[in-house]
């Protein structure tokens, strides 16, 4: 299994597990990043962090450190 940080720009992946606890996990999932959903990495910010992804038809940005705890299978 890979994680979302490793997915290159323009590539998609299926979310398998959110590997954090507490309010951060809740926040990630509330935004629609749940098990089985497809996400696409759209862009990296000019300074190299955060990243922009597309999920459930909208754009979301999150930091690489948090993306690392989103475990995915690349497609």
């Amino acid at each position: 299994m890979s994680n979302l940080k490793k997915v290159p720009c323009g590539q998609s992946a299926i979310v398998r597990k959110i590997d954090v606890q507490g309010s951060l996990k809740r926040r990630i999932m509330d935004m629609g990043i749940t098990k089985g959903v497809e996400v696409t990495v759209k862009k990296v910010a000019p300074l190299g962090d955060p990243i922009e992804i597309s999920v459930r038809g909208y754009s979301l940005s999150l930091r690489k450190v948090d993306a690392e705890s989103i475990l995915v299978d690349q497609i």
Partner: protein
Amino acid sequence: MGYSVALVGNPNCGKTTAFNALTGSKAYVGNWPGVTVEKKEGKLRGVKEDITLVDLPGIYSLSPYTPEEVVARNYIIKEQPDLIINIIDASNIERNLYLTHQLVELGRPTIIALNMMDIVEKRGEKINIKRLEELFGVKVVPISATKNQGLDELINLALEVGTKKVKIASKAIPFDMIIEQSINEVMILLDGKQIDEVYNKRWLAIKVLEQDKKVVEEFHLSKEESPIVEEAARLLENAYDDDVESIIINGRYEYITKHISSIVTNRPDHKITLSDKIDKVITNRILAIPIFFGIMWFVYFLSIQTVGDMTIGFMEGLFGTIGDQVGLWLEGMSVSPWIHGLVVDGIIGGVGAVLGFVPQLMILFLLIGILEDCGYMSRVAFIMDKIFRKFGLSGKSFIPMVIGTGCSVPGIMASRTIESERDRKMTIMLTPFIPCGAKLPVFALMVGAFFPEHVWVGPSMYVLGILMVILSGLILKNTLFKGEAAPYILELPEYHIPNFKGVMMQMWDRSKAFIIKAGTVIFVASGLIWFLQSFNFSLQMVDTNESMLASIGHVIAPIFAPLGFGTWQASVATVTGFLAKEAVVATFGILLGVGEVAETDPTLLTSIGQFFTPVSAYAFMAFTLLAAPCFAAIGAMKREFGNWKWTLIAIGYQTGLAWIVAFLIYQVGSLLFK
């Protein structure tokens, strides 16, 4: 009898536009008790009944973690509005329905206003309204708030449901079987308990199962009950290999995912939108930062420099004229000179100095409102996040600080675009460290008198200010604001053309708040300082150097002695700096007997030499830069913090740091430059 309707929806769903369209223009803006979350209320337009529309904060979920979410949840449960209108962005329906799922779970009368239907139609998508109503057990009205479509239908339906002419039975949206089983077990348990009737039992059962911290705080399960809940939770956790809270979230989204294709048809997949194309430039690797600085410069240039400068001159002239006229009128009434002084110099002068900023502020709020409304502010956070989080701040902290170079007041007020309370508090605390326009005359005076040959001294104040922001960020991050930073998980909404009416109304709301402040706190403070500098303790009107303020200066002077300016005159100048920083120059003028003169006046430049050495002058500049800002800025801090506790902490921190920095400069400087 009055009815209440709550407006709930995600951020960026067009809720504010809908609120404005539904209420007309009269809205009451305040804060929710205990938190700095804005509360907006208005009356539903065009109906005979007295219906209050309450705009709840924009939220993605009803979790117990952020103040916004807790406020919304408590309002719905405890205040029991007669109706909830859930505004949904139809062009982003999948995620928006997640909140809907939670709202329906609360079991209160709810209807859906499906907003932005015009965008959906343009995209060629079709939304099956009937199907949506079936799936969530609510009525759905398609609207377009910006185009004023569907609002009458929405108002009619709200009236019928809100006044209970039409009843809506709440639907229990099903989870899968294993989850349902656990929910049932907890519900059976709750049957035997005394439960406040405001709660929906199924909702409560889910929350108990989730171990929701707000619910757990309120419901203490007995020794016999806890194991039953724990067992039900454990079974779930084993079955799904996850925690209950996450299992429930997954369950909600699964319901939506399963049915989304029957709700929306003709869904284009992975289409490149206009926003994507705009972002190719705006958040481009190379262009993003130059564009950002360009926009910031433009905002600064327009609001602080060009138009701002013109209007400040105008306002000064205006208040000068008002002061003169009132003065003449008072003379005509032959009132005693102290009343004349209090009214003209104290009150009109003081309030006028503050109100002079209003036009500047309005332009600034207008520009910021436009940037917020069109979707650019989220991109700012995206672009700048990496730099600012190193100092414990957020990408959005940059904007208040740029504005702070003009005036701290609008800078502090601009901090409200920062969602995270921790980042916002730190930004409010640190923005006054950036040298504002009013501090420049003080620097100019000192540079002119002591460092005429050294061009670096003036700009060094900017460097010192920025260094202190960075240093304080690092200190505060690890002390006062220790703990988990708010996660950065930010939606980048689609760009859209700003709604003119909404932006104007927001600008007016924010400006009004400032004007009210000037009319109250600053009004009193100006009067007080004037009183102190015009009277002695026997309440006789005297010159400033014999006044109470001078006596106070003598008392506090020892505090400043280690900083190199322990004279009572310099101490008094520091105190009047609270009124307005430019007042420091005027105070020196008066105390030195050269009158109210400009900072470049040659007599002032030479005679000020008796109070300072170059080293202590530099320490004085540093102290003026960093110490508690003027009353207007303190007022703005109070408003943004929402309480005195944090305002006093901020003032204490700023002044304490100012003292330490000035102390170091003077002591070390005295050793180096004997």
